[in-house]
């Protein structure tokens, strides 16, 4: 399949849910990448900070365009892992009111992915073709490519650990990621500064081919909270320096490894819109 990130710019099915699922599972980024070499301490740190079975949390995405207009989206994310290669993710929107109860369901079984969308006004579920691509998360500044880097997907990203640094007086691992040869990427490199205590990224910069920073993601230190055994970032901001737009992602109502019904992750339940 010939896929280019530039045109992955449409709507939020598989990757969105997978990524947001990863956010839920890992309390924002790095769901457990397989890193190598001197990345060992980083890998161990991230793995330690991941949920085991399930999570539920409320999210709020506020995007601001270049004219200053704001658009807010709220909803709930349900994630469940049945085995190492079987998981499900459901995203159900609460607002804005006209899209309330719109839902997306992603089911992953090994390398197979199925994605469904439910639009309440249509009163029907549509399956989304696996080739369908998307890049913009509900019209926010998050793109598919960004999230692939955020996941440090082993299959597409080469990571290397650079000399540790400091962000806001907190010691941080410095990890540089580049696309593997043959993988297309809108970025020349991505530099992440990962907090050594919480194992969450405090800052990620996405560099363009001309060496300039195109996007910058930041996690305020004060938004880091501990939920049980893991750290969670309750607020993340992404600034698109090229388009002069920004998106903030806030997380609340976190429930890690609680009870999540399997029935939530079925097409029948999705069709009911509940």
């Amino acid at each position, binding site marked *: *399949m*010939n*896929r*280019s990130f*530039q*045109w992955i*710019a*449409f*709507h939020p099915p598989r990757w969105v849910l997978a990524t947001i699922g990863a956010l839920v599972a890992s309390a924002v980024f790095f769901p457990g990448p397989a890193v190598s070499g001197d990345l060992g301490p980083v890998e161990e740190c991230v793995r330690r900070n991941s949920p085991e079975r399930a999570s539920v949390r409320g999210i709020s995405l506020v*995007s601001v*365009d*270049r*004219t200053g*207009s*704001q*658009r807010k989206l709220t909803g709930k994310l349900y994630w469940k892992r049945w085995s190492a290669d079987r998981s499900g993710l459901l995203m159900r*929107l609460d607002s*804005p009111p*006209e*899209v309330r109860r*719109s839902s997306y369901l992603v089911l992953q079984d090994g390398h197979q992915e199925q994605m469904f*969308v439910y*639009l*309440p*006004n*249509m009163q029907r579920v*549509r*399956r*989304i*073709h*696996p*080739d*369908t*691509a*998307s*890049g*913009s998360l*509900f*019209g926010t500044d998050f793109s598919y490519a960004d999230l692939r880097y955020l996941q440090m997907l082993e299959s597409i990203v080469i990571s290397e650990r650079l000399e540790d640094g400091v962000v806001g007086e907190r010691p941080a691992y410095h990890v540089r990621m580049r696309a593997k040869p043959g993988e*297309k990427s*809108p970025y020349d490199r991505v530099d992440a500064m990962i907090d050594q205590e919480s194992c969450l990224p405090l800052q990620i910069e996405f560099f*363009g*081919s*001309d060496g300039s920073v195109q996007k910058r993601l930041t996690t305020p230190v004060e938004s880091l909270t501990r939920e049980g055994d893991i750290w969670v970032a309750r607020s993340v901001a992404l600034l698109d320096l*090229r388009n002069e737009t920004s998106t903030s992602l806030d997380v609340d109502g976190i429930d890690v490894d609680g009870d999540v019904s399997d029935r939530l992750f079925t097409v029948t339940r999705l069709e009911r819109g509940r």
Partner: protein
Amino acid sequence: MRWLSPLWERPGWVLAGVLCLSLLAFAGLVDIRSGKLRVMMDPSVDRLLPAGGRDREVYEHARKLFGSDEAVVVALGSEDVFTPSMLERIVRLTGELEALEGVQRVLSLATALNIHNAEGDLRIAPFLDSIPQDAAALERLRVQATQSPIYGGELVSTDGRTTALLVYLDRMSDRDLMESGVVQRIEGTVRAAVVDAEVWFSGPPYMKVRGSEILLHELSFMLPLIMVALSFILFASLRSLRGVLVPLAAVFVALLWTVGTLGWLGQTFDLVSSAVPALILTVGFTYAMHVVASFHAYFQGDDPPESSRQAVRRTLADVALPILVCAITTLVGFLSLALNPIVSVRLFGLFSILGVLYAVLATLTLSPALLALLPPPRASRPNALAAGLGRLSDFLALQAVGHRNRHLAIWGAILVLALLASTQIRVGTDVMTGFDEDLPLRQSYEAINARLGGANELQILLESEVTEAFRMPANLAQLEALQTWLEAQPEIGSVQSIVDYLKLLNHAIHDDDPSYRRLPETRGLVSELMFFGASPETQRFLDARSQTANIRVRAKVGDTDSIGDLVSRIQARLAILPPHLHGQVTGSIAMLSSSVNDVARGQALSLALAFGMIFLVLALTFTSVRVGLIALLPNALPIAVYFGALGLTGVTLNSATGLVGCMALGMAVDDTIHFFVRFNSVARRVGDEKLAAVLALRELIQPVTFTTLGLCVGFLVLTLSQIRGQVEFGLLASFTLAVAWLADVTLTPALCSRLGIVTLWDLLTIDIGLEPHRSIEIFDGLSATRARIVALMGRLVDAPAGQRVFHAGEPGSGLYVVISGEVRTWVSRREGEVTLGHYKRGECIGEVGFFQGEHSVHCIVEQDARMLRISSECLEALGRRYPRTAATLYANLNKILAARLGLRTRESALDDAFFRVPAIFRPGADGVPGADLALDPSLTERLAGLGIRTETLAALTLVPLVRVAWADEQLDAEELSAVLRGAESVGIAQDSPSQALLRAWLEERPDPRIFEAWRDFVAALCARLTIEGQFGLRDDLLGRAREVAQAAGGFLGVRSISRREEAVLRELQSVFPV
């Protein structure tokens, strides 16, 4: 002039300063480190738009909401785009272009989303996500792509033979765009990848880069060509290498300083302002030529300077002020453009102002310094061209003066015709078709325009005061209806809006059911689809609040006339939208169309300003509203003819052609000023306005013609441009300046021939003491300025103590006003000399003689005095030019006369007319001439040695006539007759010894010593004459000499005096102290 002295005293320092400034300017022009030009070209449409106003606000608002869509358009043409090989090439090329540095993204069939149903699933993936191989799949893809409401016509032509790749670049400044080479990399990549298909490039970034290269290329050959052309003109005029190189150096330096300064300021040239370098060369040339021509003229004259530095000093004294005044008028012309609402016109005006200032600076620094350093030039004989121009000027001037009314009528008719023709003027611009048809840039534009859905994009903004208005089906229906109407307009190639996107989504999400290829019926469904389909593509059509919708219209026409018609119709359609929806048309091409009003308004404003300011300058310079208006007339006519030419030829009035009026006015008025100033000085010299008009034109025709020729040739070089605006500008500018030249050599002399002129400079520099209107009785009731004008129309005389002013019984042709010093009047009585009065500053003398025709008293200077002589001719001229002033003057004279008549006793005893000219030459008792004048014995001996004795003394009176007759190295029959008539009038009988001697002088050029002896004789004589007597003697002799000079070479009743005869007349005049 003292402040200019370093120019000839320290030329080396001046050159060093010029060099330093030039190095600094060069650093502004070229980046020393990279070797790249810092001054850039920007041929984009944006510069042709108004800088502000409501339209600009809407335009900027649209760009802010929906982006500028500035992409390089790469179009590929083949028999069929939908073949596997071609589609694979598109995919590969898209990838290669995306990988280029500076490219942000590429929108092509390889990346554009195809929203459709695939095997029961909703599939939203690029058209070329996978390349179909079988015919059926290819045909399916063709239908999907060509019939896509969003991409059909934009990314693929409806016939499937052309496809486009829109290459969006990283956000970068124009400088970065030029220096990054991204456009060249894109073109190189495409040409390397596509060898068997046609390729075209367009789009604003491509236009900027390639258009910039065209402009640079044109400048690179036009500027040298202009300099070569100017070199020929300079050589033809001055016939010396110095005469060519010095002006060229000055204009080159002026150009370097200008572009260097613009480089430091980060300015860019555009389609209009790119004519500025050529303009600086030509305008600078006219200034520098005046300096060098004047310098050369000194070495051709009878009294050549001793050194180059001395010549430079004299030259600057002559030309510095006229050049500055001319520069002011030229600057006024450009200043009027600097207030134009169109950005490019404004910048043209500002850049030109800078260039003219530098041209003046370089002309008045570099040229004199170079001339001062070089050895003096050798005198050369007048060339045939100059002689031809002299004959032409005589012909033109004599025609103008001799047939003044006919000239005025002809020009009046031309004016009427021009004004009538100007009613046909069309205002409009077409940027792309302004490029030459052979240019790839133009060909690409035409190809893309013809094959895809039009190359000129308009935007229609539909706004509501309510947020999320365009989630309401009713509003979307209005949008859809408007779109349908737009698609029906013949000029429109394609229309896209959020309606297309929603229809496509609705269709796809309903399993490609054709009945759902329509707008969703409820607000909820619309919202869900928008939420579901949120993407950068939807952001091109709808803002984040769903409050403003953007309809993208691609028009197949590009000229402002057609676009203007279309926009008018669209606006009429928008006017019938429901009240809660407000529609506005925008986009650069729409703004360009609406800017025609700004062009017309700007033209009117600029011209009104230019005329107003130049009139002020002229009125101030010539101290008269009437003269200011008259001087404006020869310059207004060419402007009217220029507008008439626009109307007749169909050339549109636009940002480029609209420059011509103000610019030509500012330049053409220079020649008028030169002419009026020269006419003024000649008129004072010869005392005859008609003759002054002829002589002034003869003196000026060469510089005026050559400078006009230089300007015309410089502008004509622009006709070699591949940009139509430049061609039209060059043609119109040279045509208008040629007409201005014609007006200056025909109409101006005709207008001047009845004018008395006083310049501001005269007014400021004349010395008649403080508050002349209060301290001089004859000026009572006049303003100080009027008093000075009267003084300028009269003649100031400086006389030493003991000098007689007039003698009782002398003809009285003038009265005297004492400016300073003291004079005394007296009469002779039996008992001796009786003083009548002493006269000091402000008092009049000779007024009785002036009115009676003969002085009744003697007058002598008691203390060194300065007097103003007011002749009857002066009063007549005043009566014509300043009737109120003349009336006041006459009234004051009456008062003075009335006051004095009662006091004075008239003595009728008149001395013999001892001082009258014939008596002067009475021989002495011993037969030696001048014995009773007590001449210096050496002079007496010299006269005798030259054969002038008692019986031939009368011939001596005719030496000036003989001198003039031989001025042209030959003596023709008419001149011979004139001299002999002169002999008869002074009583020299035929066959007398005097006439024999005279005939000998007429047969063979007399010994120059005879003239020297005559000169010394007259000088000795004048020492014994009154001032009035000196005036009488001078006028009598010069009058006869001028008759001889006019005897040959005349035309149509007006006699002509050659340049050499004029020089001799000046020489004769210089013999007399008054």
